C-alpha cells in the first residue's frame, strides 16, 4: 500500500467531515500561507514542486498562476472543473465524495496565489450529488471563517460558488467553459490573449483541474521536496488518482504514486483481468488518448513516460479492453460519442468526424473496403486544422487503431463482417 495523501480520509460510503479534515492537518496550509507566505511565495512553492495540471495537458500549475501578471486587473477568478466528461474518468466524483474540504482549501490557496476574489466550481448534471455536497460544505467552511471576508483575520477575501452545467463534453475545454459560465453557447474561443489575462467577464481567470487543486494544501504544508518524493519517477511528482475501468475485476479510482507501472495498476489495484479475459490494449488516459500496444504494458504512468511511448497520460483514466472486445466497434462507439459531442462550430470537426464514423460503421458492418484506410488517415489529419483540441483528440483512437491493430481492421474487410460477432 502506498501513502495516501489525497485519499487519506477516504471512508467506505461516507464523506469526511470538516472536523476529520482538520484532524488530518486540513486548513493548516491555509493558515500558514496567509500568515507567513506572500502570494508569490505560494506560487513558487508550487512551481518548485513541479505540480503538473491533472486535467490532461500536464501544464505546471505554478506557471499557470505566474501567468497572471501583477498589473492585470481585478477581480480575478479561479475556475475548477468537476465536469470530466472524458469517458472512463470519474476521479473528480470520487474526490468530492471523499474529502470536499481538501478541494475547498486547495481552491482558496490557488485564489490567494493569484489574488482572486471568487472561485467557481463547474459541475456536470450527472454529478448533482457533488454539487449538493459542495454547497453544503461551502456553507460550513464559510461559517468556520475559511471563506468570505478577511479569511482567518488576514487581508485576503475569497468565496466559492457552484455553477451547474446543462451537460456537454465541450464544456471541459477552458474557453468553452468560460462561455458556458457567462450564459453563452459554450463554443471554444480562439484568442491571442490567454484566459489568465482576459477570461471570465474579460478578467484574469485561472482554470485548474480539481485534482490539481487538492494537491496544493499538501504541497504548501510539506514542501516541494516531499511532494516530488511521492512520485516513482524523476520527471514527475506527487500521487495521481488513476481510474481503472473495463474488463478488470475491481474497477475503481486509486491513489497511487505518479509514475507507477501500468501493469501494477491493473494487476494489483484493478484486481487483474476478469477470469477468462486477456489484456489486449487500453486507453491510458480517457477516450482522447491512443490505444496502447501490449508491449508497453509496463509503461510508467506519468506525463513524460507515456509521451515517450507515443501516447498521452491524459486524465489517467485507464480503459481496459480484452481479447474478446472488437476494437473497430469500440472505436466506432468512441467516434459516435465525439460526433454527438462536437459543438459543430468549425468545419474540420463538424465534417471530418461524421465522415470517419461512416467509414468505421461500414467496416464494422461488413461493407469495408481497402481504400477506406487511407481515407481514415486523411480525415484524421484534417482535424488538426480545427479550432480546438477536441477533434484531434477524437481521432487518436482512430489513428492508433490503424497503427497497432490493422490486422483486426483487415479481418473485418476481408471477411465482410465483424469477426467478433459469431
Amino acid at each position: 500500500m502506498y501513502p495516501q495523501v489525497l485519499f487519506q480520509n477516504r471512508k467506505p460510503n461516507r464523506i469526511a467531515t470538516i472536523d476529520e479534515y482538520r484532524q488530518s492537518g486540513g486548513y493548516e496550509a491555509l493558515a500558514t500561507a496567509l500568515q507567513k507566505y506572500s502570494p508569490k511565495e505560494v506560487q513558487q512553492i508550487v512551481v518548485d514542486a513541479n505540480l503538473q495540471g491533472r486535467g490532461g495537458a500536464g501544464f505546471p500549475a505554478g506557471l499557470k498562476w505566474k501567468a497572471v501578471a501583477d498589473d492585470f486587473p481585478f477581480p480575478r477568478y479561479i475556475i475548477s472543473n468537476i465536469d470530466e466528461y472524458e469517458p472512463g474518468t470519474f476521479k473528480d466524483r470520487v474526490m468530492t465524495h471523499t474529502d470536499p474540504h481538501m478541494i475547498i482549501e486547495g481552491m482558496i490557496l490557488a485564489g490567494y496565489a493569484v489574488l482572486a476574489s471568487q472561485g467557481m466550481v463547474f459541475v456536470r448534471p450527472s454529478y448533482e450529488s457533488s454539487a449538493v455536497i459542495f454547497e453544503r460544505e461551502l456553507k460550513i467552511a464559510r461559517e468556520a471563517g475559511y471563506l468570505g471576508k478577511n479569511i482567518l483575520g488576514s487581508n485576503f477575501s475569497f468565496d466559492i460558488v457552484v455553477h451547474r452545467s446543462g451537460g456537454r463534453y465541450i464544456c471541459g475545454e477552458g474557453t468553452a467553459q468560460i462561455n458556458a459560465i457567462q450564459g453563452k453557447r459554450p463554443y471554444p474561443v480562439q484568442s491571442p490573449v490567454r484566459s489568465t489575462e482576459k477570461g471570465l467577464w474579460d478578467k484574469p481567470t485561472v482554470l485548474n483541474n480539481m485534482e490539481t487543486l487538492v494537491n496544493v494544501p499538501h504541497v504548501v504544508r510539506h514542501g516541494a521536496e516531499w511532494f516530488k518524493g511521492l512520485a516513482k519517477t524523476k520527471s514527475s511528482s506527487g500521487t495521481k488518482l488513476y481510474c481503472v475501468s473495463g474488463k478488470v475485476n475491481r474497477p475503481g479510482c486509486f491513489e497511487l504514486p505518479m509514475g507507477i507501472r501500468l501493469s501494477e495498476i491493473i494487476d494489483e489495484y484493478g484486481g487483474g483481468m476478469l477470469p477468462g479475459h486477456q489484456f489486449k490494449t487500453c486507453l491510458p488516459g480517457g477516450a482522447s488518448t491512443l490505444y496502447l500496444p501490449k508491449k508497453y504494458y509496463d509503461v510508467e504512468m506519468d506525463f513524460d513516460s507515456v509521451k515517450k511511448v507515443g501516447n498521452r497520460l491524459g486524465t489517467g483514466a485507464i480503459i481496459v479492453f480484452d481479447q474478446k472486445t472488437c476494437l473497430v466497434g469500440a472505436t466506432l462507439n468512441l467516434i459516435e460519442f465525439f460526433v454527438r459531442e462536437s459543438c459543430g462550430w468549425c468545419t474540420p470537426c463538424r465534417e471530418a468526424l461524421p465522415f470517419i464514423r461512416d467509414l468505421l460503421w461500414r467496416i464494422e458492418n461488413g461493407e469495408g473496403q481497402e481504400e477506406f484506410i487511407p481515407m481514415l488517415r486523411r480525415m484524421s489529419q484534417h482535424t488538426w486544422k480545427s479550432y480546438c483540441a477536441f477533434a484531434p483528440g477524437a481521432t487518436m483512437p482512430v489513428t492508433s487503431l490503424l497503427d497497432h491493430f490493422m490486422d483486426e481492421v483487415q479481418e473485418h474487410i476481408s471477411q465482410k463482417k465483424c469477426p467478433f460477432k459469431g
Partner: protein
Amino acid sequence: MLPKQLLETLQAQIANAEHPRELAVDVMLSLQQHYGYLSDEALEEGARLLGMTPLEMEELATFYDFIYREPVGKFVIHVCDGVVCWMNGYESVMGYLCKKLGIEPGETTKDGLFTILPTACIGYCDLSPAMLINGRPHGPLTAEKIDHILNRLRTEPPPVRMAR
C-alpha cells in the same frame, strides 16, 4: 404563468447575481422542474427574467444534454452509451429497457412515466453498465436490477433533484 413563489425565488436569485446570465442554466433547470420540460412558454419566461432574447436562451437550451425542449416522462432514464458501458453490455441494457417499457430511445411511455434517452458517458464507469434516472445513478445494471428499479419507481415517488 409561474407560481408566485417560484417567480420570487428566481427574481431574488437574479437580483443578487452580479452577472444575471450566469444563472441561465439554473433558471432553465428550475423552470424545467416546474413545467416538466422547458416549454416554449417556460423558455420565454426564463429569457424575460434574465434580460435575454428567447433566441439567446434557445441557443443554450438546445446545446445541453439535460435541458429537455420536448415533453418528457416523469422519470427520464439517461442510459450511458460511453465506451466502458458499451463494452460491458450497453446494448442489452438498452434493449431490455426498451422491451420492458415498449418504447424506443427518445420516446415516452403512454402513461407519461418514463422517457429513455441515450447519453454520453455519465462518469460512473466503475458501476458500468450504468444509467441515471432523474439525476440518480444506477449500476452495474442487470435485467433483475432494472426490473426492481422500474417497479419501485412505478409504486413510490423518489426524491427528484434536478435543480436546486
